[in-house]
Each structure stands twice: as structure tokens, then as C-alpha cells.
């Protein structure tokens, strides 16, 4: 086009213009952005968040940690009673994850659109159950079960069960929705009923993925298990609550530290186990 190199771009195409702003697409974008900013400033106002003192706050947090939380009372977390509560927390997470997954397998099957035995009735019910279990926070489940069953780890186990149903149920359903339908069709063609189709056509395809999700669920359940005790559902959380209330900050620091370490360990084990399962296929 530009055969003469002396011509500038503007001289070649004087009548063509280009603008970043295009009507109305860009208008909607800017309006959306404006609305978002407006909502944010409204929120800051409405919630009385002191923006002016905001930066100074970080200094205060730092002071707080050095003055009160440091050094952590490590001796407290090596106490046999505390270690027993750690083991109990692991047990709660184990049971919750196991019970939750036992319920999540059928829910995942019923709630997977491609293979649900009844798309009109069972599918929406399974979806609703999974979604509710997931939407209600694990601490709320803990409080509800404590109210009904009294203080203790039974409430914690059930709360974690509900949590795991929501967590694993959704992932299971997604996994089943991604399977190859060919074998399912083939098993159906042999005259098998839907249960046998599940056992032979669906489950072998997702078994490995389910094992991985199962390990991951246990890992997540353990993280949740560290706090359900805060609301009376047993385990380490109860120690946390007691020391928070008594303002034993160095003990709280030690407990938090122990939680971080335990979560890191469980994460490492879970990552290792999942990698192994994936390799074994």
C-alpha cells in the first residue's frame, strides 16, 4: 500500500478513524465498571470501614503479633491431651469423609445429567441435595448438629459428612458427566438395568478419578475439622476456642501453628497419594 516511504500513515488514510470507545458495547462496559466502583464505595461507607486508618492498621497487626502472639507456647501443643485431640480430629475427618463419600457416590450418579436414571425427578432432587449440602457452611452444619445432638464429636462427624457430601457430590457428578458414553450404551445393549450399567459401564471409567477426589475430600475435611470444635463439635477447635476466650494468645499462636503444620502434612500426603493414584491409572 505505502509505495512512497515519504508519506505518513495519516496522509494515506485521512478519512479512516479508529476509536477504542465503540457505541454501545463499550458504553455497557464502562457503565458496568462504574456500577462496580459505585457498589464498592457504597460498601465501604455502609460497613463503616475506616479507609484513612487502613494502612496504619498493618503496623498494629505487626505489633500485635510480636507483642502478644510471639513466642508461641510450643509446650502447650505437645501436651498428650492436645495430641489426643489431634488424633480425634483426624478420626472425625476420616469418618466424615467416608460417610460423605458413601452418600456422594449415588448422589453424583443421580445428579449427572447424562446417566441419571430419571432426568425429570431424580436428577433435580440429587442436584438440590448436593447444592444445599454445599451451600451451608461447615460451621453452620456443626452448630446445627451440636444443637440437635449435644456437644461432642458425633456432631462434628455429621457436620463433616454433610460438608463432604456437598464437596464430593459435585465433583463426582462432574466427573461422571465427562465419561465416554460408548461403553454405557454397550452395557445397556446387553439388557443390563441402570444399576448394572453404573457398576460396569460408569464406575470403572471414573474409579481412578473418584479415588483422587476421595483423597482430596479427606484433605479438605481435615481442614474443616480443625474448626468445627470451635462450635462445640469436638477436636482441636475446642482448644482453640478455650484459649481465644481466655486470651491465652501465645497458646493460640501455638495451636494455629500446629494447625498449619498439620494441614501442610495432610496436603503433602494427599498430593503424594493423588499423584500415585494418577500414575497407577
Amino acid at each position, binding site marked *: 500500500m505505502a509505495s512512497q516511504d515519504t508519506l505518513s500513515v495519516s496522509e494515506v488514510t485521512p478519512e479512516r478513524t479508529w476509536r477504542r470507545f465503540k457505541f454501545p458495547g463499550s458504553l455497557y462496559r464502562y457503565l458496568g465498571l462504574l456500577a462496580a466502583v459505585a457498589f464498592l464505595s457504597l460498601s465501604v461507607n455502609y460497613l*463503616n470501614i475506616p479507609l484513612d486508618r487502613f494502612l496504619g492498621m498493618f503496623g498494629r497487626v505487626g505489633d500485635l503479633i510480636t507483642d502478644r502472639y510471639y513466642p508461641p507456647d510450643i509446650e502447650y501443643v505437645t501436651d498428650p491431651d492436645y495430641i489426643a485431640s489431634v488424633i480425634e480430629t483426624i478420626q472425625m475427618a476420616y469418618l466424615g469423609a467416608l460417610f460423605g463419600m458413601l452418600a456422594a457416590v449415588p448422589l453424583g450418579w443421580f445428579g449427572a445429567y447424562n446417566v441419571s436414571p430419571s432426568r425429570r425427578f431424580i436428577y433435580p432432587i440429587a442436584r438440590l441435595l448436593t447444592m444445599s449440602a454445599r451451600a451451608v457452611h461447615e460451621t453452620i452444619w456443626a452448630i446445627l448438629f451440636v*444443637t440437635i445432638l449435644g456437644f461432642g464429636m458425633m456432631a462434628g462427624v455429621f457436620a463433616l459428612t454433610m460438608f463432604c457430601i456437598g464437596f464430593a457430590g459435585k465433583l463426582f457428578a462432574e466427573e461422571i458427566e465427562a465419561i465416554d458414553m460408548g461403553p454405557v450404551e454397550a452395557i445397556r445393549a446387553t439388557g443390563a438395568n441402570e444399576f448394572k450399567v453404573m457398576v460396569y459401564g460408569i464406575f470403572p471409567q471414573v474409579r481412578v478419578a473418584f479415588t483422587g477426589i476421595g483423597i482430596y475430600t479427606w484433605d479438605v475435611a481435615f481442614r474443616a475439622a480443625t474448626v468445627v470444635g470451635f462450635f462445640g463439635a469436638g477436636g482441636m477447635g475446642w482448644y482453640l476456642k478455650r484459649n481465644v476466650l481466655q486470651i491465652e494468645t501465645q497458646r493460640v499462636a501455638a495451636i494455629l501453628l500446629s494447625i498449619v503444620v498439620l494441614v501442610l502434612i495432610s496436603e503433602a500426603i494427599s498430593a503424594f497419594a493423588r499423584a500415585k493414584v494418577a500414575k497407577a491409572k
Partner: protein
Amino acid sequence: MTAVPHMDQRLDAFLAGRRRGKTTRTLIYLVIALLVIWSVKTTIVDDTDWERLGSVSDVLASIGNFLAIDWGLMPDLWQPALETIMVATLGTVLGVISCIPAIWFGALNISPFPPITYPIARLMMTLSRSIHEIVWALFFVAAVGLGALAGVLAIAVRSIGFIAKMSAEAIEDLDPRPVEAIRAVGGNEFQVFIYAILPQVLPVMVGVIIFEWEINIRRSSVLGLVGAGGLGLVFFRQLNTFNEGGVTAVILAILLLILFGELVSYFVRKAII
């Protein structure tokens, strides 16, 4: 058929092979079952105050209390619901802002000095993800006092891990050619970031942020339990005044709020990506 005379032997050999496979599997199941029995004993049988729990009908009665939903409470839930959304949104925004250094340090291909900066970023991400939001909230309540700010901070800190991890992974996977192209026209590092890196990872990041925002609604709905306002606070009050029907009403409100969050995220995702 010629194979028939040997069939019995072959059958036995095959079945024996199956049984061998079964013994190891049975052993694994046995271990699982023993762990279950032991755990059930310590966590459920020994740790429950069975006398206080009463009979099955007592339990059913106390569940029944929750089913008498206090619909009258619903109009009073608008304001706390709004607060919950606001805390979740502000927390997400603050989380996105504060995870920028973690993303920068945590993506190996752009990390300024990987031997030191990369571990720092990983530590930030791990701390954020491994500590429960309730614990973060407790910490910030102690630091800045009761109120929404503690909730916003807790949500922000808790969001860093996931957003930073996903974004850093997206940056590590990005196509290096546009980066070279911008360098070739003489762009500096900042311009490279704005013109070559950001456009490539923005869709992923937006998706991740919206996803995190959805989760944050669920989180902020309970932070009131430890003093950060919103629906959690109402929940706590209803519980302490033994108004079980009100408790259920708050839970329903939370469900609706989360449904609302899912709808919003669905439309925003559609509009942006």
C-alpha cells in the same frame, strides 16, 4: 472344540487367580473397616452424652423445632444479607489487589529472583489456603476489633491462595511469543506486562476471581459467628434466643444468597468471557 477337555483346569486356574486378587483387596477393606470401628468408638460412642441426647423421638422433636420456619424474620434479613454480600465483595477485591505480589513472585517465568521470591510466594499461598476463614477472622477481630473490617480482611487473606495459585499457573503456561513481540517494539517490563501478559491471563483470572467471589459469599455468611457482622450474626442471635425457626430462616436466606451469587457469576462470566 479342542479346548474343552482342558476347560476345567483352566477354569480353576482362572478362579484361583481371581481369589488371589481378592485377598489383598479384602485386606484393604478390613483395614478401612477397623479404622471405622475404632473412629466410631472414640468419636461417637464414647464422646456422646447419650443420656442428655435422649430417645430418637427427642431428637426428632428437636429437629422438628427447626422445621417450623419463622417466615416473619425474612424482612429483617435484607440488611444483613446486603452486608454479607458487601463483605464478600470487598474482601475479594482486596484479596485480588493483595495477591498481585504473590502472583508476580509465584510464577516461575516472571519471578524476579526465583530462589528467594518463589518460596515466599508459595508460603503466602499455603498459609492463606491452609488456615480456615474462621481462624483468620478470629485473628483479625483480635487485631482490628469487632466489625465488618475484620471480616473483609479475613476474606481477603483467605482468597489470596487460590487466586494467586491459579493465576501464577496461567502465567507459567502463557504463550511467550507476544512477550517477545512487545519487547521487539521496544516495550519496557511494565508495558510487556500490560500488553503481552495481562491480555493472555485475564480471562483465566476473571474466571477464578468470580469463582472465588461465589465461595466468599458462603464464607462471609458465617463470619458473623466470630464477630464480623452480616447473616452470621443474625444466625447467632436466633440460636442464642432459642428461636430455631429463625435459625432455619437464616439458613434459607443464605441459600438464596448463594443462588443469587451463582446467577450473577453465570451472567458476568457470559458477559466477559
